[in-house]
């Protein structure tokens, strides 16, 4: 095999579904931390902080941000980064071990195609609004959320994203390494400026901007839930970034710096600014806290911060897309797939910019799905498979694989997913904020995650051995890999 062919195979693995070997993985601890931080810091972090300020005061808000994010991030990364970082597998290929090949495709469509297209449009519009705000700072231009400048800049952001992703992970690494540290510095300066204008004690004593309920506990739990939704929202993306990390530990710990630490820092800045200035719009308060020059610099960086987030989620979505339709999509050029995926987000930006205003509802709805997926992932990989996968079953033709389950779907995992989603909506309706008494004590994401995980574990223990599904290890077996010979377990 020539060197040229070896390079192509590595590139194919980076951009496709085959497992990346440890020697091919490009991100060390700090590089994955940069990628993670670049993913986490965007206008959405400031907006989530601002939303938290609506429900609770800054002291409770900081507590809600930390509690919600650490729980959401931890559960999302245990279920994705631990397995993908160990085996270097593409996240939705790994998902075949718990949902089956067709089940994994279904989850991909639900969690990635629909959500990523929505997120790309929302982030593109955030970029557009930042540029619009920037224009109003340096000229007499009046901001207009639905104006031509916002739509044109939003479209430009998606096209820039597509250009960088088309170049592959190496260009993403360069982009992240430059932008992420600068963003952290800018957020530190913002925090310094806010604390320069108001003492910490003053800030902590401020009330909520617009608490929706009389009960302090319910308002606090909604604030926690919004932040937990932010933590869980990384579930569809983080596994495919983690597989580029050199090993499992490097795939896990940087999440604490990036999608927990950097995101929480951005949200705290957004919370304090919103509470102190009474406005949750970063394009407004950034000029108020630092003056014109700092406002222009900060808004410019925050605008491009949206692009780094878009780059990371688009890359992971395209890698997943290649396992969706097998050889057909694998044969398509990477660049062509990237461009094709971006058509719908561009149309949403141009034809439905109102999606931006539904940002929070959109975010919390995603948690109903992501929390259940995380619960199923933890139950399956850690407790049922005991952290051992049979890679042959992941890649062999559907019907010959023990991971084929029933017609390519694992009904047990799908039942658990529906149950987790349903309990979430019963406990807390993201659309109306209507909630049950139980929600005020245990949130909605945690019960959804726990119920989905327990159901998946229990039903699998009872049904899988009888039906021959999934090649799960028996109770007395130490390892999940029963054998390396692919046998037919199809129950069609």
């Amino acid at each position, binding site marked *: 095999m020539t060197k040229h062919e070896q390079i192509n195979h590595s590139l194919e693995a980076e951009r496709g579904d085959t497992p990346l070997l440890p020697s091919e993985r490009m991100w060390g601890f700090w590089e994955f931390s940069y990628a993670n931080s670049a993913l986490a810091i965007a206008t959405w972090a400031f907006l989530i902080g601002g939303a938290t300020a609506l429900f609770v005061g800054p002291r409770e808000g900081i507590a809600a941000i930390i509690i919600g994010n*650490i729980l959401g991030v931890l559960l999302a990364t245990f279920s994705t980064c631990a397995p993908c970082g160990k085996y270097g597998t593409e996240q939705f290929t790994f998902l075949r071990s718990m949902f089956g090949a067709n089940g994994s495709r279904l989850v991909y469509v639900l969690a990635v195609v629909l959500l990523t297209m929505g997120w790309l449009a929302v982030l593109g519009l955030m970029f557009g609004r930042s540029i619009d705000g920037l224009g109003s700072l340096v000229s007499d231009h009046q901001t207009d959320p639905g104006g031509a400048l916002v739509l044109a800049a939003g479209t430009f952001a998606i096209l820039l994203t597509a250009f960088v992703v088309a170049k592959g992970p190496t260009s993403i690494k360069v982009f992240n390494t430059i932008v992420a540290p600068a963003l952290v510095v800018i957020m530190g300066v913002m925090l310094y400026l806010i604390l320069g204008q108001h003492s910490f004690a003053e800030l902590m004593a401020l009330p909520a901007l617009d608490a929706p309920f009389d009960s302090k506990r319910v308002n606090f739990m909604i604030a926690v839930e919004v932040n937990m939704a932010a933590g869980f929202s990384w579930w569809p993306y983080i596994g495919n970034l983690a597989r580029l990390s050199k090993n499992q530990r490097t795939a896990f710990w940087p999440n604490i710096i990036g999608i927990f630490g950097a995101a929480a820092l951005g949200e705290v800045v957004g919370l304090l600014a919103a509470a102190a200035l009474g406005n949750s719009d970063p394009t407004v308060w950034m000029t108020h806290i630092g003056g014109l020059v700092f406002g222009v610099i900060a808004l410019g960086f925050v605008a491009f911060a949206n692009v780094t987030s878009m780059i990371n989620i688009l890359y992971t979505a395209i890698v997943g897309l290649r396992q969706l339709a097998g050889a057909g999509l694998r044969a398509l050029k990477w660049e062509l797939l990237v461009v094709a995926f971006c058509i719908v987000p561009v149309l949403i930006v141009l034809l439905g910019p109102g999606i931006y205003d539904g940002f929070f509802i959109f975010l919390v709805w995603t948690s109903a799905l992501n929390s259940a997926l995380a619960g199923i992932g933890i139950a399956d990989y850690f407790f049922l498979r005991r952290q051992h996968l049979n890679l042959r079953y992941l*890649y062999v033709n559907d019907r010959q694989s023990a991971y084929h389950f029933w017609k390519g779907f694992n009904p047990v995992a799908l039942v658990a997913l529906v149950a987790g989603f349903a309990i979430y909506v019963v406990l807390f309706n993201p659309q109306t904020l209507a909630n049950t008494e139980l929600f005020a004590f245990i949130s909605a994401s945690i019960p959804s995650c726990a119920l989905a995980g327990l159901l998946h574990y229990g039903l699998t223990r009872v049904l899988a051995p009888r039906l021959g599904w999934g090649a799960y290890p028996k109770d007395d077996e130490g390892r999940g890999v029963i054998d390396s010979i692919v046998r037919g377990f199809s129950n069609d």
Partner: protein
Amino acid sequence: MDSQAEIARAQELERRIRAYEELENGDEWPGALRATDYIAIILMTLVLVIGCYLWGY
């Protein structure tokens, strides 16, 4: 599986799977999360959640 590209992909996939099977059969998986990592993660989470709840609420 007919085309040259598919045959090459199958061979490459086999090489990669074998590499991981060798790791799986070894005594130690380099860079794997260990019990100390899990204990540290759980302790850190408990401290953050309980600490923030007591401080903030």
